[in-house]
C-alpha cells in the first residue's frame, strides 16, 4: 500500500514539475475564471435590474456571483479532458501495452497525472479563494468547518469526475474514437453540474432528473457547502450519497476496463 502510494506520488510530483514549465496555463486559467464571472455578473445584473427584485430562487445578486465564481473554479479543477484524450489515444494506438507489462495501474497512473497537471490550478485557485476571503469576509466559509467540508467534497468531486471520465474512456475498447463523448460531456457539464448557473434555478422536473445522477456532487454541492447554503446537518447524508456514487462509478469503471481489456488487441487503431 505504502509502496503503491509512493509510486503514484512520484508520478504526480513529476507531472507537477512538468506543469510548472507551462505557467501560461495558470494565467489563462485565472483569466477564464475572471472573464467567466464577469460575463455572468453582467448578465445577471441586468436580469435583477429588469425584474426589480433582490432575491431570485433564494440567491441575491452577490450570492449568485460568488456561487458562479466558486462554480467555475470547481468546474475547472474536476475537468480532465486532456488526460482523458491521452488515455483514449493509449487504447487506440496500442500505448496501453506499456501499462500491462509494468506494475502500474492504468487508472491510478493517469489519476496521478491528472492531479499533477491540475496542480498549478489548485495553487492559483487556492490563492484566489484566500484573496476573496480577505476582500469579502463572510461571503463564503462563514465557519472554519465549512472550509474542511468543502475540501472533502471537492476531493470527492475530483475523484468522482475522473471515474466518470474513465467510464467513457473505457468505451474506446469498443468504439475507438470516443473523444467526442468526452467533449459532449464537458460541454453539457458546465450547465448541468451547476458550474455557471446554480441547479436551484432549473425547473423542478429537470432538477429531479439531475439529482438522480452524480452530477450535483461535481460542482453544485461542494460550492453550496462553501457558501453555507447547505446546513451542516445535511452534510453526512450528502457525503454518504456521494461516496455511494464514488464506489458505483469506480466499480463500473473497473468492470468495464476488465471486459474491455479482453477486446484490446494491442496495436494501433
Amino acid at each position, binding site marked *: 500500500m505504502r509502496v503503491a502510494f509512493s509510486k503514484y506520488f512520484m508520478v504526480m510530483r513529476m507531472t507537477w514539475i512538468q506543469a510548472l514549465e507551462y505557467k*501560461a496555463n495558470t494565467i489563462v486559467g485565472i483569466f*477564464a475564471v475572471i472573464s467567466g464571472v464577469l460575463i455572468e455578473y453582467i448578465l445577471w445584473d*441586468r436580469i435583477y435590474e429588469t425584474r426589480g427584485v433582490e432575491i431570485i430562487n433564494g440567491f441575491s445578486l452577490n450570492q449568485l456571483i460568488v456561487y458562479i465564481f466558486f462554480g467555475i473554479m470547481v468546474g475547472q479543477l474536476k475537468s480532465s479532458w486532456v488526460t482523458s484524450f491521452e488515455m483514449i489515444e493509449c487504447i487506440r494506438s496500442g500505448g496501453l501495452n506499456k501499462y500491462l507489462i509494468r506494475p502500474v495501474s492504468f487508472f491510478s497512473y493517469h489519476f496521478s497525472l491528472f492531479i499533477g497537471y491540475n496542480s498549478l490550478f489548485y495553487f492559483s485557485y487556492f490563492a484566489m479563494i484566500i484573496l476573496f476571503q480577505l476582500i469579502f469576509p463572510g461571503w463564503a466559509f462563514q465557519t472554519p468547518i465549512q472550509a474542511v467540508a468543502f475540501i472533502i467534497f471537492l476531493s470527492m468531486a475530483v475523484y468522482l469526475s475522473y471515474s466518470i471520465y474513465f467510464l467513457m474512456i473505457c468505451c474506446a475498447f469498443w468504439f475507438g*474514437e470516443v473523444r*467526442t463523448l468526452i467533449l459532449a460531456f464537458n460541454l453539457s457539464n458546465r*450547465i448541468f453540474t451547476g458550474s455557471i448557473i446554480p441547479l436551484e*434555478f432549473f425547473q423542478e422536473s429537470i432538477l429531479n432528473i439531475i439529482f438522480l445522477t452524480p452530477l450535483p456532487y461535481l460542482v453544485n454541492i461542494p460550492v453550496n457547502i462553501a457558501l453555507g447554503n447547505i446546513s451542516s446537518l445535511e452534510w453526512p447524508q450528502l457525503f454518504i450519497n456521494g461516496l455511494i456514487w464514488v464506489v458505483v462509478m469506480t466499480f463500473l469503471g473497473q468492470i468495464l476496463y476488465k471486459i474491455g481489456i479482453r477486446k484490446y488487441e494491442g496495436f494501433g487503431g
Partner: protein
Amino acid sequence: MRVLVVRHISLWWSFFTNTLTRDMEFKANFIGSLIVDAVYYGAHYFFFNIIFSYVDTLGIFTSADVRIFLVITFIADTVYMMFFSGNLFNLNKLIVSGDLDFALIKPVNGQFIVSFRYVKSYAIVSLTILGLLLSSLISQNPHDISILNLILFFFSFILGQTIWYSLDFMIGCLTFWFKNFTVGGWLGHELFKFAERPDSIYTGILRKSLFSILPMALISSVPARLLIYGPGWNFLYWQIFVSVIFLLLTRIVWKAGIKKYESASS
C-alpha cells in the same frame, strides 16, 4: 489579382475535396462531431431558456430576438469550426515541431496554407440544420425582416468571421515568441464566450472594448442586429473598419513571426 483569387479558390476547393474524402473514411468521427455540436447548441439553448424564464428582454433583445441571436452564434461557431479551427488549433504544434517548414516551402502564401489547409466537412450538416432553423425563426419573428436585412446580415457575418479569424490567428502566432503556447486555443475559446451573449448586456468600458480592441461583439451580435432591426450603417462601417485593421494586423504579426521562426524545435 483576379488570377490570384481564382487560384486560391481552386486550391481551397482541392483542400476541401481532400478533407471530405478523409472525413468520410472516419464515419464515427463525423457522427460524433455532429453529436458534440448538438450538445453545445442544446446546452446554450437550455441556458437561455432559464434566463428567459426570469425576464422578457435583455436590453433591446426580446426572447424571440435572442433565439435568432443564438442561432447566429451557433452558425458563426460552426462556420469558424469548418474553415479555421482545425488549422489554427494546430499552429502551435506546427511551429514547435518545425513542421511549418513544409507550409513555407510550398509555392503559395504561407498564411493561406496554414489557415485553410483542413476543412471540417461535418459542419456542412450542422450548417444545413442551423440554416433551416434560422429561416424558421426569421419567419416567426415579429420584426419585418427584408431582403436588404438578409444581404446586410450575410455581409456583416463574413466580416465577423474575418475578425474572429484574425484574432485567433494572432493568438496562435504568439507561439513564435513564447516558444510553446499550448493554451492559445483555450484563450481564444474564453474570449469567444463574450460573443456568446447579446451585446445589449454590456455597458461602459467593457462594451467599448468589445467593439474595438477585443471586438467579440462584432462576431454575432452586430450581424444579429442587422438581420433583426435592419440597416445599422454605423455598426456596419465600424465592422468594416475593424476587420480591415485586424486583417492587416495578421499580416504584420505573421511576417514578424516568420522572422523569429527558427525552423525545427525552434
